[in-house]
C-alpha cells in the first residue's frame, strides 16, 4: 500500500529525514517509536504533503502511484489520513460544515454525488457513537476551546467520518486519560479492515496493549534504525533508547 524509499527531507536547509525507508501493506499496523526530535512528526507531515518541508531525495508511492508531488487534499482524497499531534483550532468554522465540506469534496473528486443532509447527519451520529464524542463538541467550531484530550478524540472522530485507507496517528494517545485511551483505541480497532492500514506514532507501550502492532520501528535521527515485532516496544519501555543510540552512533561496538 505505502512504500517509502530512501526519503530525505529538510526544513530551512536542515535535513530532518535522512534516508528513511518503510513498507506498509494493507491490513497491517505499524508502530513508530523514537526519541523526541527524531523526525516522527516530520515523516507524518511529509507523507501528507505539508509544503513546509522540502523533499530532496527519495520516493513515496501509495497504491502504486508516486504521490511525492501531490497536494495535501489529493493525498487525503486518495485515502491518507493524519491524526495530528497538535490539532489546530479554527474559530468560525463549525465542525459540521468542516466535515460536510471534507466529505463532499472527497466524493466530488471520486465522481460521487454529495451526501444528502439526512445521510450526512446519519453518518455523524453513527461515528459520534463509535468514538463516544459529545455532540456539544461537534456543534462547536473546529477544536476551538477543546481540551487536549478532546482534540485527540476529535481526530479519531474525523478519521471515522472519512474512513481512510491509511491512517497515520501521531501521538494520538498523549494527553488522553485511561478511559479515553481505551475508547480511542477501540475506535481504531473497530475501523480496522483487511483493506486498510495504520501507522501509530507513540512514546508509550500502553497504547500498543490496545492496538496490537504487527511491526515496531525505531526512528532515530531521520532513519529507521531498528524494526521488529511487538515485543520491541516492551524492550524499549524497559531499556529506553540509549542502547539503540549507542549502536547507531558507534556501529563497531557489539552489544
Amino acid at each position, binding site marked *: 500500500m505505502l512504500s517509502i524509499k530512501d526519503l530525505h527531507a529538510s526544513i530551512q536547509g536542515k535535513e530532518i529525514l535522512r534516508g528513511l525507508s518503510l513498507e506498509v501493506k494493507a491490513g497491517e499496523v505499524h508502530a513508530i517509536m523514537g526519541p523526541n526530535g527524531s523526525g516522527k512528526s516530520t515523516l507524518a507531515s511529509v507523507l*501528507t*504533503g*505539508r509544503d*513546509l518541508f522540502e523533499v530532496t531525495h527519495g520516493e513515496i508511492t501509495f497504491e502504486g502511484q508516486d504521490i511525492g508531488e501531490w*497536494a*495535501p*487534499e489529493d*493525498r*487525503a*482524497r486518495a485515502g491518507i*489520513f*493524519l491524526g*495530528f499531534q497538535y*490539532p*489546530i483550532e*479554527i*474559530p*468560525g*468554522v463549525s465542525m459540521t*460544515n*468542516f466535515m460536510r*465540506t*471534507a*466529505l463532499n*469534496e*472527497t466524493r466530488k*473528486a471520486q465522481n460521487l454525488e454529495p451526501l444528502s443532509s439526512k445521510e450526512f447527519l446519519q453518518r455523524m451520529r453513527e461515528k459520534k457513537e463509535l468514538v463516544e464524542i459529545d455532540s456539544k463538541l461537534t456543534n462547536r*467550531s*473546529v477544536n476551538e476551546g477543546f481540551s487536549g484530550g478532546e482534540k485527540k478524540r476529535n481526530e479519531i472522530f*474525523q478519521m471515522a467520518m*472519512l474512513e481512510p485507507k491509511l491512517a497515520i496517528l501521531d501521538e494520538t494517545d498523549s494527553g488522553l486519560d485511561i478511559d479515553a485511551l481505551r475508547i480511542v483505541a477501540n475506535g481504531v480497532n473497530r475501523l480496522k479492515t483487511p483493506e486498510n492500514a495504520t501507522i501509530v506514532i507513540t512514546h508509550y507501550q500502553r497504547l500498543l496493549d490496545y492496538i496490537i502492532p504487527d511491526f515496531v520501528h525505531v526512528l532515530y535521527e531521520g532513519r529507521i534504525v531498528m524494526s521488529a515485532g511487538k515485543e520491541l516496544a516492551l524492550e524499549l519501555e524497559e531499556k529506553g533508547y540509549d542502547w539503540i543510540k549507542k549502536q547507531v552512533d558507534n556501529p563497531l561496538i557489539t552489544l
Partner: protein
Amino acid sequence: MDMMVEIIDTREDLKKEFIQQRTILDQAIPGFGYQKREQAFAHFLKLGIPSTRVEEFKYTPLEPLFNKEYHRSYTFDPISFDKDLLFNCDVPNLETQVEFVVNSWYYHPEHRLQVLSNGIILGSLAEAAKQYPELFQKHYTKYANPASDGLIALNTAFAQDGFFLYLPKNTVMDQALQLINMMMSDRNLMTQQRNLIILEDNSEANLLVCEHTMSNHDFLSNSVTEVYAGKNARLHLTKMQNENNDSSQLAAVFIHQEADSQVSTNTISLHGGFIYNRFDVALQGRGAHNDTFGLYLTDRNQHISNRTLIDHAVPDATSNQTFKGVLDDDAHGSFTGKILVRKDAQRTAAYQSNNNILLTDRAKMNTKPMLEIFADDVKCSHGATIGQLDSDALFYLRSRGISQKEARLLLMYAFTYEVIAAIPVEGLRLRVEELVSKRLRGELSRCNDCTNGCR
C-alpha cells in the same frame, strides 16, 4: 502641479456654481433660510477638500476624485427605472418596507412624505423641512458640524434632498425599513445626499441601506446622515455597499445618543471603487451603548477607508467597534479609529479592534487606532492586526480533502463571521451571509447580477 492649486480649482468651480444655483438651492430646503448654506459654503471655501496632510485623511486621497469632471444636477429628473432590476436588493425571508433614493432625491411614484398610522413619518428630507419645520430645525446640522470638515460643509451647502425618518415616542417600526440608494445617470455625476433620522424616546427601528450604482459611469456621492436617538431608543442600521468600481462614495454618519439608547451599525462593503465611511458617535446620555461594526472585501484597485470617532461625553456609556477586512490584488485600505473619553466619562467601557487579511503582497492596509482618555476609571482596549491566512489551519483543512480554494474560502468566511453575526435581524443576517460568501467566491459581480451593463 502644486496640490493647493488643484484644491482652489475645485473651490472656484463650485463657487461659481453655488452663486448660479442660489435660487434653486434656496427653494430646495426653505424655511431654514439661505443663511445655513452660506455659512456652510464659507466654511467650505476655508477648508476645501481635505488633503492627505489632514491627519484623518493621511491614507484617504480625495483630491484625485474631485479632479474628475462630473455633471451636477440641481433638479430631479424622474428617470424611468425598472423596479425589477432591483431584484438584487431582495431580502428573501424578510418583510421590508422598501424606499428609494435616486441620485440623492427621494423617489416615490405617489407621495413625497408618508405618515403611518402610529405617527411615524418617512420620505423626502426637503418635504419634511417644509411640512415639519420645527422638528427639522431642531436636528438639522446639529450633529454634523459644517465648520469642522470640508466634506460636511460642501454637503450642507449643496444638499437638496435625501431620506427622512421620524419615529415619535414609544413607536416601533414593525417591519424593517429598506432604503435603496441608487445612482443612475447617462454621464458622470456628483451628488450631495442628506439624510435625517430621528428616533424619539423609547422608539425602535431596523434600517437596511443598500447602495447601488445602476449604470456604467463615474459617480461621486458625498453624503451626510444625521441620527438622533432619544432616551432608550433602539436603532439598528445595516449598510450594504455594492457599487461599480468607478464610483466613489464618501459617506459620513453622525449619531447622537441619549441615555440608555442603543445604536448599532453594520457596514458591509462588497464593491466600490473608492469608499470612505465615517462614523461619528456622540454618547451624550448615561447607559447609552453603541456598536459600530464594519466588514470590507476589496480587490483590484479598490480603496476603502473607515474612520470612526466614539465620543464618550458622559459616565457609564459603553461602545464596541469591530472592523474586519480582506484585501486582495492591489487593494488599499485604511482604518482610522478613535475613542475619546472625556474627563467626566467615568466607568466608560470602550473597545475597538481592526483585523485584516492581505491576500497578496501588493495589497496594503494602514490602520491607526487612537485613544484619548481623560477620565481615570475606564476600561478601554484596542487592537489591530494585519496578516495572512493561517497556514497551519489551511494545511489542517486540506489534509481532510478540502481543496486549497475551498479551504481559503472557509477561513476567510470564518474571519468575517464576527461582523455578520452581529446583525440582529435574522433574515437580513442570512442575506448578508449569502452575499458575503458569494463575494468571497468571486460570484458577485460588481453590480450584483444587474443587467444594466455596469462595469
